[in-house]
């Protein structure tokens, strides 16, 4: 438990320092920068979709796959009608690109999205292979987080009595 708390403290520490010092950068700049959406806003509100999108997608995917219901409301394809991020040339970017609508937030919170191992993330006809070649490998969608092994080793060192003695900690 102590170890867990320490990890949290370490993880939050640097963020706290930044906000406390406030380099004149607004906090909104540090949050995920979503690509602009087209079309009508969600009647349920964005907060609802931010929280419930996976439940809705999962619910409707079962309707489609299991019962053949094709007139569904929540589908990945439907999301990208409005939430398709585009590159400088106006080409829709696939999930191999960090600018992809899903990835912007999911990268921020360090969660790997599996959807695009099977599903397209661009309209039919866009060459995703070119973006795959130029982009990062999907296996690396969660990018360089803290090295946990190193962190644990460091924490183990901190709490072991020898270390406490040599470093003068805990006296």
């Amino acid at each position: 438990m102590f170890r867990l708390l320490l990890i949290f403290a370490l993880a939050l520490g640097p963020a706290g320092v930044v906000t406390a010092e406030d380099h004149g950068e607004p906090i909104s700049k540090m949050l995920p920068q979503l690509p602009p959406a087209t079309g009508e806003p969600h009647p349920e509100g964005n907060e609802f979709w931010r929280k419930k999108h996976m439940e809705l997608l999962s619910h409707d995917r079962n309707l489609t796959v299991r019962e053949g219901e094709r007139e569904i409301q929540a589908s990945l394809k439907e999301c990208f009608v409005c939430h398709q991020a585009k590159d400088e040339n106006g080409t829709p970017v696939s999930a191999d690109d960090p600018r992809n609508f899903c990835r912007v937030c999911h990268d921020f919170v360090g969660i790997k999205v599996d959807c695009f191992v099977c599903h397209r993330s661009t309209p039919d006809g866009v060459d995703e292979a070119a973006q795959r070649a130029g982009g990062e490998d999907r296996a690396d969608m969660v990018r360089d987080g803290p090295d946990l092994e190193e962190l644990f080793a460091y924490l183990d060192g901190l709490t072991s009595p020898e270390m406490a003695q040599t470093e003068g900690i805990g006296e």
Partner: protein
Amino acid sequence: MTFRLPDDESEKPDLKRRDFLRSGAAVAVITLAPGVTLTAFGGSEAEAGAADAGKRWGLLIDASRCDPDCNACVTACSQENGWEDTGKPETDAQWIRKVTLKDKATGRESSLPVMCQHCEEPPCVDVCPTGASFKRADGIVLVDKHICIGCRYCMMACPYKARSFIHEPIVNQKSWAPRGKGTVESCTLCVHRVDTGRIPACVEACAATGNKAIIFGDLKDPESEISRRLAEYPSLALRADLDLNPGVRYTNL
């Protein structure tokens, strides 16, 4: 650090109620013991989606009309569903393949396409440990890749070798036919087409060549062309000894 989500649940639509309304099916729940319930779905299942329990989709393949040199059904399937020959026959997906049968006694050869036979009693469904392999209400046997763990039991269970495993990362899938590494796949009877009132790509391609060796239709409708042909002419199921009652039938083998 204020990327906070509302804690208030009351403003959300009631998903459970929505599920119920969407399914349009009457639900009976019987409590067998505390914590153990038996749920039965009945009523107007047809309204739940395109998978209609009042139908059973099937194919009738006339081997005498199938040209041994023609590969149109295989090509059409490959293009429609986005699987292809990558030059690695050991691992490439094959949703449909042309097979040549030879009667050893007489030397007579016949050519026929073999794909998932969409069994009424599918062994692939029996063995699936996650429920990913399933049969729709209208008899189409599918893999729900969302919950397929890639164990490949179904591939071993299938007597027709109809299923393939995806070994390598895939890109540029069709939006209507998602496929990805680590899951099993097979002929879907072009379910995305059938759900929108169209016929499978192989059937369409075969008709376009003029051979018209494959007929698609509803086996439960006595008036459909496939049912009338089956009633009139002799036909057989591959490996009929296994008693799987496949939805794909062959004539003139």
